[in-house]
């Protein structure tokens, strides 16, 4: 949205292909049209969301905005799209900015495929978009700043938040403090969320171990171990499980971007400079370029727009660009701090029982994956592991199992995550009707 605004304000007429029906992405998601539950935005982001939506609306006549348009393949200056779920088409371009966002990053906990288990982002989306709670009594668990924000939003809207259980030990947050000080405002915001939860009597526990989720009296039971080693149980209606975010890089790969391993976020990202230049005519911005949150997404969008304008010969607004780059540097440093403060649960992965599902779509468990990787003679990366085990071949195309698959390859073969590689993207990036791929509109 921010990139489109900058481009439109400087004489361009960008085409915006938005998969959603209304602008805003995830962070600034508007309530579903027609529901009329008011111009409600979640606390903590009201002002920023309102400002961006207003700015976008102000250039509406200078932008070619195409909602409900999914780009499912991209190559050679063409984006293959599906409009409103039914009409196939092709959009030709000279320059493309990919702002594909992120999904939640998941690490399995036994029982995570039971109905009633979702993600903190999903729980938040249901509230923002539909005005509903995933359950009356909810536990938020895993490790991620989003756990605290979503829990607070739920508490404010009448849910009973049983607890926020963070697998990362509290000491890691102190360790992350220097990096987190790069953006003191954001740090204070996070601290305020935790304080607000405590004032509401919500237990916040760190350094926990999540043992399993099972069917119980209150519909679900979460068995967990506290930092002192004592086993605990919680009866809840729903579990919101999440371990941070995972960039959506499929379109960037298909568009020809090289990939690089980002050690802080433990994932492969499109290789790009700070302004988002990734490949010839291809720019990336937002969480799809690097996890960074809403403000970083806007700033990276603006920088990409300025870079595009620069290539088109427009005069550069040097002070503005310098200011944006400086802020983005700080936000990237802050994000690295968050990755330390909310860590990947290596212990959880190592302790996963063999019968825990890894691939939800194809119902493949950890034992099968481990045995297959161990037994294979020859080099094995995450793509070979996919071919052998079927993990990642299902409907979600590895969105939720790929990080775990890579971790298992690394663990079983004694290689690094970087050596385990990234799951090669294939078109279509989301399932679509066969007729759409055959048509040419």
């Amino acid at each position, binding site marked *: 949205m921010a990139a489109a605004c900058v481009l439109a304000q400087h004489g361009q007429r960008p085409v915006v292909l938005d998969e959603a029906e209304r602008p805003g992405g995830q962070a600034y998601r508007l309530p579903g*049209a027609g529901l009329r*539950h008011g111009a409600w935005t979640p606390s903590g982001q009201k002002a920023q969301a309102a400002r961006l939506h207003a700015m976008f609306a102000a250039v509406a006549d200078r932008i070619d905005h195409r909602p409900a348009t999914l780009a499912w393949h991209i190559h050679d200056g063409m984006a293959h799209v599906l409009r409103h779920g039914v009409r196939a088409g092709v959009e030709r371009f000279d320059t493309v900015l990919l702002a594909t966002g992120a999904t939640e990053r998941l690490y399995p906990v036994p029982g995570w*495929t039971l109905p009633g288990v979702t993600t903190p982002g*999903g729980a938040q989306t249901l509230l923002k978009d539909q005005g509903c709670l995933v359950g009356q009594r909810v536990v938020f668990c895993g490790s991620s700043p989003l756990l605290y924000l979503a829990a607070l939003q739920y508490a404010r809207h*009448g849910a009973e938040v049983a607890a926020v259980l963070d697998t990362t030990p509290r000491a890691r947050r102190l360790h992350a403090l220097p990096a987190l000080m790069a953006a003191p405002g954001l740090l204070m915001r996070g601290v305020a969320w935790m304080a607000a939860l405590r004032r509401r009597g919500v237990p916040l526990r760190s350094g926990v171990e999540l043992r399993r989720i099972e069917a119980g009296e209150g519909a679900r039971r979460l068995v967990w171990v506290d930092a002192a080693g004592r086993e605990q149980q919680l009866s809840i209606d729903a579990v919101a499980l999440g371990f941070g975010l995972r960039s959506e890089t499929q379109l960037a790969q298909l568009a020809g971007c090289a990939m690089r391993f980002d050690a802080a976020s433990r994932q492969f990202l499109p290789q790009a400079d700070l302004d988002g230049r990734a490949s010839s005519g291809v720019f990336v911005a937002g969480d799809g370029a690097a996890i960074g949150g809403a403000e970083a997404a806007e700033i990276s969008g603006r920088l990409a727009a300025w870079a595009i304008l620069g290539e088109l010969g427009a005069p550069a607004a040097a002070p503005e660009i310098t200011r944006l780059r400086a802020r983005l540097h700080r936000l990237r440093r802050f994000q690295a701090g968050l990755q330390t403060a909310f860590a990947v649960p290596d212990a959880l992965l190592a302790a996963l029982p063999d019968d825990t599902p890894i691939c939800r779509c194809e119902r493949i468990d950890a034992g099968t994956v481990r045995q297959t990787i161990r037994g294979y003679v020859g080099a094995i990366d995450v793509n070979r592991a996919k071919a052998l085990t079927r993990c990642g071949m299902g409907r*979600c195309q590895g969105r939720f199992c790929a990080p775990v698959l890579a971790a298992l390859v690394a663990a079983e073969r004694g290689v690094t995550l970087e050596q385990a590689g990234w799951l090669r993207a294939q078109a279509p990036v989301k399932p679509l009707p066969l007729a759409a791929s055959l048509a040419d509109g």
Partner: protein
Amino acid sequence: MTARFQRAIPAGGRRVSVWLEGVALEAWEGESLLAAILTQRDCLPGDGPEGARAGFCLMGACQECWVQLEQAGPVRACTTKVADGMRIGPYPIRLA
């Protein structure tokens, strides 16, 4: 439990009538199929990775909430809005 999701913010628009596996269901205009079904039932029709399913990511990524519309074929329940007269059944192919 009879309903999985709880409506926290009252919906204020028009009522819409859909059919879920042959049973009449009242929804709100603007509701997603997922919200309309799960504020009144505890599961979606059809099977998921653990038998009963209720969606997972709730935002169009996991592909676990597909339902079959008689008139329009398979759709994601979380990203598809209700419309008058929709007839909804289970996704015909087992998800795994």
